[in-house]
């Protein structure tokens, strides 16, 4: 009930803004050799006029003006027109933005079934915009730019129609059909919304009321700079994605994305085509992909495009920034946890080649900032066995030695109008050295003292080469060669002291897990009549390797290599205006078990009216590699991925059905989608609390089972003027069955039955603020219920602790409030931004799990009492960041 009231209050609060128009005023102003930004600031100061503009760009434009009692409209035209700028009044604010540029070489009427191709670019940097959406307003047909920002369209075009072009975070543009050139290559330029609005981070699904396109039912996300920054002191692209319904936002310290009732390893994350396995820094605290390096993200779930595969739940395609093709820029970030820099530049005068590179490194091994100490202690406290007191690892003589770093480089070269070549490189690393003692000082009988020295490293290197070639006006080819190398190493040297015998021993172990992933892909995209066709082949070679060294004994335990060869084809057929049918198939040959795996995909979309559309989809997704163990700080074990080889961890297949409706009403988009998944081959590492159903049997390291998840996702997205509000709700039930440990289905640990997310952003010309609140009902856990004594046949007594069925109890509900504020200044041509964020403002003690341990009361191990410790998630955490753009 309380949640409903809060939701209603937030809802009415968001939509209660009333804008007031300003009347025209007479202006008297004289400025000599001043910047345009200064002129607007003078107008603001003298006449209390409100402007929204890009202070960085406008501070670079200068001139002299003298206005004597002239109307404001004339003054603005005089100021702006010479520089191809325009204004418009929204509410009480004059918004300044570049004049729309649509390169229209000739005005020709488009003939039926003409091929119409082109590209969509950022008007400032000239960067191509991947996944931009183009919609014929009357006809209702829509299409996208590809990952390279280009599009091809073929079909009947009504000369009276107009084309709506939009991309997340950019001003939408409408172009009359008669202005388009069907025989040439059309360049469409979009202006970033950041000129006058927040860097909007989340768009409605592409199928929202604006467009009928459900051929790619995906969310497009522009991580921006602000919304993604608030939180834990590091810009985090995952935190932005977690605003979407269906993406869990309450599971802290877990890497990856939990998408629609699926474990995080079932969401593939690719960066410019190569797979990212190192998804997090600081043990799951934030994303390992630098937000500065990301141009756009596309999150696809359920019935995927046929070109996408490899994971059961979905794919997050991250497209790296190409860099400005007009001018060089340098950005420097200084944060409480890391420092970083990004550089972009054209490499030639024609703007055909660009370079983008960025890097960041934590300062955690040099400066123990308060937020870092708090973060590390929270993670550490949850990883060790201890009493209820809050552990402070920084109190001792030697603090933990931890750092992370990552770097991205992207080179783009467009040798001709028809070719584009990208080379993208990525490297990331987390390294920790920590010493600690398990002495159990509070026990009556101290059985054993262990002094741990643990060192762990986690690295991922990725590279891709991509060549996009326009074969002709109708067909485009993409060739991709990508590789990713991921390895986790852990080294431990422990000293064990037994007080009873005054005996000290040492033990040493090291473990290394390697994962290699190489992808070769050739893809053809084209259109024919009312059909858009995508087809291609992919070869994916995967390697997993395990090496162990225990007290000097070296074991090369396991090395598995497998190749998946895939052919895929998909046709998007516009049956009648407003109705699209998409049929596709992926055919995979998996050489590890010499079997063919088919993944049929089918989607239907119906644009019922301008405001409503319905869609329905079915698809099967196959996953050939699964993560069977997540990194564990306490056990000093790395992530373990296993190739789906029969008898070990099987190939995971997931059949998925989804249906949804979208409603668009004047700035308000409401989407609701329900889904159901049936999974086979779900890998599970049973852990210490799992009990075999058949007594006396030994559980294998990995179990294979079945699972179902069903849910409903609702997104309410309101976007008007300076205000952007999002409300997301998810209902989920996710259970899996492993016959070896339970006769009944087991709730998955990530099953959040109800999750509500609200976010509100506001931005003026130089101020930005955001507030978000997340609520999640309790997740499952395994509860210790008590102990009983049992007399053995020979009269001995055993005290037996009993736990509830696995994941049959629920943790307390999760909620937290985050706020962020940022302010921008222009100082001598340098843009400076200071942002401050508070994570978990009211310091809610969210519980991730409970830890139960034995406190011995005598030397007999049956004499104990159970100690219970809640493992808390991150509490109140203020952070501050500073960035400069030169």
């Amino acid at each position, binding site marked *: 009930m309380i949640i409903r009231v809060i939701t209603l209050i937030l809802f009415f609060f968001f939509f209660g803004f009333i804008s007031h128009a300003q009347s025209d005023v007479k202006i008297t102003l004289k400025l000599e050799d001043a910047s345009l930004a200064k002129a607007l600031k003078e107008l603001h100061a003298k006449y209390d006029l409100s402007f929204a503009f890009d202070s960085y760009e406008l501070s670079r434009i200068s001139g002299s003006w003298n206005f004597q009692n002239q109307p404001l409209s004339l003054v603005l035209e005089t100021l702006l027109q010479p520089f191809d700028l325009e204004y418009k009044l929204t509410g009480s604010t004059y918004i300044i933005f570049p004049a729309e540029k649509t390169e229209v070489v000739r005005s020709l009427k488009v003939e039926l079934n003409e091929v119409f191709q082109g590209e969509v670019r950022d008007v400032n940097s000239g960067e191509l915009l991947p996944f931009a959406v183009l919609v014929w307003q009357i006809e209702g047909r829509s299409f996208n730019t590809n990952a390279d920002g280009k599009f091809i369209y073929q079909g009947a075009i009504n000369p009276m129609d107009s084309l709506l072009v939009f991309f997340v975070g950019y001003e939408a543009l409408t172009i009359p059909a008669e202005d388009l050139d069907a025989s040439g290559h059309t360049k469409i330029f979009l202006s970033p919304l950041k000129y006058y609005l927040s860097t909007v981070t989340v768009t409605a699904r592409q199928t929202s009321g604006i467009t009928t396109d459900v051929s790619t039912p995906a969310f497009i996300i522009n991580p921006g700079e602000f919304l993604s920054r608030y939180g834990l002191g590091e810009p985090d692209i995952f935190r932005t994605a977690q605003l979407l319904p269906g993406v869990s936002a309450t599971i802290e310290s877990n890497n990856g994305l939990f998408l629609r009732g699926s474990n995080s390893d079932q969401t593939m994350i690719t960066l410019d085509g190569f797979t990212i396995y190192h998804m997090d820094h600081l043990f799951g605290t934030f994303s390992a992909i630098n937000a500065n390096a990301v141009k756009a993200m596309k999150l696809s779930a359920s019935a995927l495009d046929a070109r996408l595969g490899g994971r059961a739940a979905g794919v997050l395609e991250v497209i790296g920034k190409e860099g400005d093709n007009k001018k060089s820029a340098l950005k420097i970030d200084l944060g409480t946890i890391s420092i970083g820099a990004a550089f972009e530049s054209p490499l030639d005068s024609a703007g055909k080649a660009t370079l983008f590179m960025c890097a960041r490194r934590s300062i955690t091994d040099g400066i123990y900032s308060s937020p870092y100490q708090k973060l590390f202690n929270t993670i550490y406290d949850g990883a060790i066995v201890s009493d209820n007191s809050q552990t402070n690892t920084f109190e001792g003589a030697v603090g933990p030695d931890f750092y992370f770093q990552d770097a991205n480089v992207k080179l783009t070269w467009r040798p001709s109008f028809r070719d584009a070549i990208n080379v993208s490189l990525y490297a990331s690393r987390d390294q920790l050295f920590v010493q600690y003692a398990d002495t159990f000082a509070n026990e009556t009988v101290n059985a054993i003292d262990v002094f741990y020295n643990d060192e762990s490293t986690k690295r991922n290197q990725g590279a891709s080469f991509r060549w996009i070639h326009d074969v002709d006006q109708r067909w485009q080819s993409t060739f991709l060669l990508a590789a990713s190398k991921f390895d986790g190493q852990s080294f431990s040297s422990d000293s064990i002291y037994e007080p009873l015998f005054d005996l000290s021993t040492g033990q040493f172990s090291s473990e290394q897990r390697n994962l290699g992933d190489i992808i070769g892909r050739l893809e053809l995209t084209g259109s024919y009549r009312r059909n858009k066709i995508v087809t291609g082949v992919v070869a994916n070679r995967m390697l997993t390797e395990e090496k162990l060294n225990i007290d000097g004994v070296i074991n090369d335990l396991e090395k598995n290599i497998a190749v998946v060869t895939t052919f895929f084809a998909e046709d998007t057929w516009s049956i009648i205006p407003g109705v699209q049918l998409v049929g596709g198939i992926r055919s995979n040959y998996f050489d590890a078990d010499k079997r063919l795996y088919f993944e049929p995909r089918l989607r239907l979309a119906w644009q019922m009216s301008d405001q409503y559309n319905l869609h329905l989809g079915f698809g099967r997704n196959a996953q050939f590699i699964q993560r069977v163990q997540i990194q564990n700080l306490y056990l000093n074990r790395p992530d373990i991925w296993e190739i789906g080889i029969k008898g070990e961890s099987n190939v995971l297949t997931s059949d998925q059905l989804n249906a949804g409706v979208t409603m668009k009403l004047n700035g308000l988009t409401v989407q609701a989608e329900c889904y159901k998944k049936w999974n086979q081959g779900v890998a599970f590492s049973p852990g210490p609390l799992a*009990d075999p159903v058949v007594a006396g049997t030994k559980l294998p390291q990995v179990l294979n089972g079945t699972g179902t998840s069903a849910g409903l996702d609702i997104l309410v997205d309101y976007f008007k003027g300076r205000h952007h509000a999002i409300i997301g709700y998810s209902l989920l039930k996710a259970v899996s069955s492993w016959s070896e440990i339970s006769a009944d289905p087991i709730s998955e640990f990530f099953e959040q*039955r109800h999750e509500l997310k609200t976010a509100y952003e506001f931005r003026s010309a130089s101020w930005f603020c955001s507030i978000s609140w997340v609520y999640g009902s309790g997740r499952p856990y395994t509860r210790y219920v008590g*102990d009983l004594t049992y007399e053995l046949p020979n009269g001995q007594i055993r005290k037996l602790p009993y*736990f509830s069925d696995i994941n049959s109890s629920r943790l307390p509900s999760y909620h937290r409030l985050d706020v962020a504020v940022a302010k921008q200044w222009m100082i001598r041509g340098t843009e400076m931004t200071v942002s401050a964020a508070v994570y978990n403002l009211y310091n809610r003690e969210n519980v991730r799990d409970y830890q139960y341990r034995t406190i011995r009361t005598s030397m007999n191990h049956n004499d104990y009492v159970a100690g219970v410790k809640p493992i808390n998630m991150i509490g109140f955490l203020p952070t501050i960041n500073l960035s400069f753009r030169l």
Partner: protein
Amino acid sequence: MKPILTYTLLFALVACSPSSEDRDSTYEPVLFASITGGEAVDNVQLLFAGAYPHSNTSSARIFISKNDEPEIELTRTGNEFFDPGQQVVEFGSNYKFRVLLNDGDEMLATAIVPSEIALISASSEVVSVSAPGTVASILSWTSLGGNYAYALKLECLELSPVLIGDGYGQFENRNGLSQLQSQLLLLKDDFKYYGQHRLTVYAFDKSLEELYFFDPSDIRGLLRNAPDNVTGGGGFVTGLSNFVVDIQINE
């Protein structure tokens, strides 16, 4: 259009709503039973592990069936159950336990009763601790194969036992855990008292062996789940076969 939207949302809500109530377990029903070949079923306990008493076992019923024959319902007294017909447990048979809890949930377990075991030989049944040498007696009994383990229980039957002396009474230390061999070497210092003693040898399904070696704490001090062989709850049911040997300890 609005009705379509409304019905779609309603359909989605119904389609996605959970099909059954989740259990939020604050207790675990636990069944303990050991049935011995040649004796009646009378040592069956239904308990709960949990912070508070739970009513789910208050009117629970237990049924038992031998080798898939028709079930017999056990009679309850408190937390304990017994067979009112006092039928003798048959050696070498499987006995299935089915517990019907108040809420309709079931617990299932099977006890395998070993074949009958018997003493084959005992080198001595009267032992003098003052005699030279350390071996008191060597016993061997019927071997049931690798799926069974054995436990030993030594009792002094004297009403007023007299201690032998320091260093005597090592039986528990040497034979407290279960063992696989079907023979036993009894040493003189195993005995703590003079007088009449009774050694009971139990044979049981090997799965029970886990309980002999069970340590509730793992190497890190975390609490471990107790081993059990009951589906739908915790606990342990086991079938036993035993014999006794009386040994006299003299000065």
